[in-house]
């Protein structure tokens, strides 16, 4: 089936892309199809407005999810979709890049917004450039038009009364030359930092892992949560991956963000841009965080944070 195709690793992002897909398909007067990994999910996607579900058969043991690429490419070659929207998980990004290359078409990676140019029947897509310093608008001149879209960009599609659709079984994936020898699922139950009203963010200026306690105390008196910069999670591994903020991490919109020893490079600031109030604590008065902050405190965090805690306690009488 031509039209708009949706592909994501799991249920929630599929439903999110489905709501965007239904909208675009209605404007184009075409149908919406989605890939599903189980017949149960297939049923649900149809209830939520999908016209066709392409059911992917289970993979053989030890095959990574990316093994479906040849199947997806084959279906696209047979059916000629106008648009393919793919959930921007890491696997989704690899699948999309390989599929786009095989289909000789363009892919807008990390698309943060899209609309349809009705006249040209073309998607107008936005994405971040230079670590978030700029927004780039692109159109895809080839077909299908492809985009990977981060989670929570759209609301999930909801069940529509009595919506009907078809389920079509796809052929099995050919054996992949990449085989899985071990899987370690994520165990840490990190808080959902995107929900926090106040975020105290630990940067590399915090010299030792134990000293994160300082940030925790500040977060404690404010009723907030502790987040971090990418190197604190990835290079130092002091805090879980789910807690780092920025263009490749989580995007947050708290009422209050306090950066503690965070330099404030653009890739980080892109993730905190929508905070209501930004406070930066840094001993380098030229640190970029001060360009991005409402309140900048220049000095040693080991001196400032305890003072801040004391003042807040006094002001709130706790």
């Amino acid at each position, binding site marked *: 089936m031509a039209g708009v195709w949706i592909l994501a690793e799991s249920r929630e992002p599929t439903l999110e892309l489905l709501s965007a897909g239904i909208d675009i398909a209605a404007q184009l007067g075409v149908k919406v199809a989605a890939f599903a990994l189980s017949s149960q999910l297939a049923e649900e996607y149809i209830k939520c407005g999908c016209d066709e579900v392409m059911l992917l058969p289970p993979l053989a043991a030890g095959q990574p999810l990316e093994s479906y690429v040849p199947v997806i490419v084959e279906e696209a070659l047979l059916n000629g979709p106008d648009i393919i929207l793919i959930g921007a998980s*890491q696997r989704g990004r*690899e699948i999309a890049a390989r599929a786009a290359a095989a289909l000789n078409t363009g892919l807008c990676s990390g698309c943060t917004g899209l609309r349809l140019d009705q006249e040209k029947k073309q998607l107008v897509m936005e994405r971040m450039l230079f670590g978030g*310093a700029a927004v780039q608008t692109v159109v895809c*001149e080839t077909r299908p038009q492809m985009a990977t879209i981060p989670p929570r960009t759209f609301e999930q599609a909801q069940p529509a009364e009595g919506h009907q659709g078809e389920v079509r079984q796809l052929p099995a994936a050919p054996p992949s030359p990449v085989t899985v020898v071990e899987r370690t699922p994520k165990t840490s139950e990190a808080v959902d930092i995107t929900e926090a009203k106040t975020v105290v963010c630990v940067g590399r200026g915090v010299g030792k892992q134990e000293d994160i306690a300082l940030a925790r105390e500040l977060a404690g008196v404010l009723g907030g949560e502790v987040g971090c910069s990418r190197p604190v999670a*990835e290079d130092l591994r002091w805090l879980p991956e789910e807690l780092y903020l920025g263009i490749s991490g989580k995007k947050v919109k708290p009422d209050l963000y306090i950066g503690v020893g965070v330099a404030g490079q653009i890739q980080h600031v892109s993730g905190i841009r929508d905070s209501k109030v930004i406070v930066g604590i840094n001993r380098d*008065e030229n640190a970029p965080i001060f360009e991005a902050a409402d309140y900048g405190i220049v000095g040693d965090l080991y*001196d400032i944070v305890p*003072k801040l805690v004391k003042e807040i306690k006094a002001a709130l009488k706790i």
Partner: protein
Amino acid sequence: MPRIIACFKWVMDEADIKADPKSRQLVLDRVGYKISDYDRNAIEEAVQLQEKHGGSVVGITVATPGAKPCLKDALSRGPEKACFVNDPAFENLDPSQTAAILAAAIDGKIEYDLIICGEGSSDLYAQQVGPALAEKLGIPCATYVNKLTYVEGENKVIAQRKLDDGLETVSVKLPALITVLPDLNTPRIPSLKQVLGAAKKPVDNVSLANLQQTFEPCLKTTGILAATMERRRLKFTADPEDIRKVVDSLIKEGVIA
């Protein structure tokens, strides 16, 4: 002994990019250039594998002729040779073009077992060129790798991928391509001797004419606007009175309660 190709991109340093707040146009006349951040990890990994297992490392880039300074920078980090795929037309390429040009420059022209790319480039951060190049070359790939082992005698690599849902260790037969995360290694800082030595290393120049193909873009950029942010940018010291002022303001703004 693995023959390795490390792909690197010469990019504008985003820290130098300014914006005109009224027009939201980027002001690029004072920007410096650098090797894309994560490509330094790609080069480092290639060089470490060579130090351990022998073989060779070629650094390859697709750029305009003006990017020539990238060669010395890249070669000072350890590769013994560079392939400079350059043409005045190679400006503002979209990822599909870059992947196609790399494929044309590598396929049948450079012998390799392993190609290493960064997770994403610092300017576009499309995270596409690596997997797209693998697809064009018809070789397997493993993305988002934060641990890599070359298995001698078996012609394969074991790669640990860091994904949203956990870690996945995969075994990949060579030839293959991998894309690397920054926590894989710490790139070395070239010594003066290495910087000087880099100028003497061989460079293969490849032009568009040499590739005997055309490369049309798939994506068209219709606009670029600076992302602006209105902030008050008030500055305070660590004096207790200043700290009190900040706390008072935050309470007044209703973000502390």
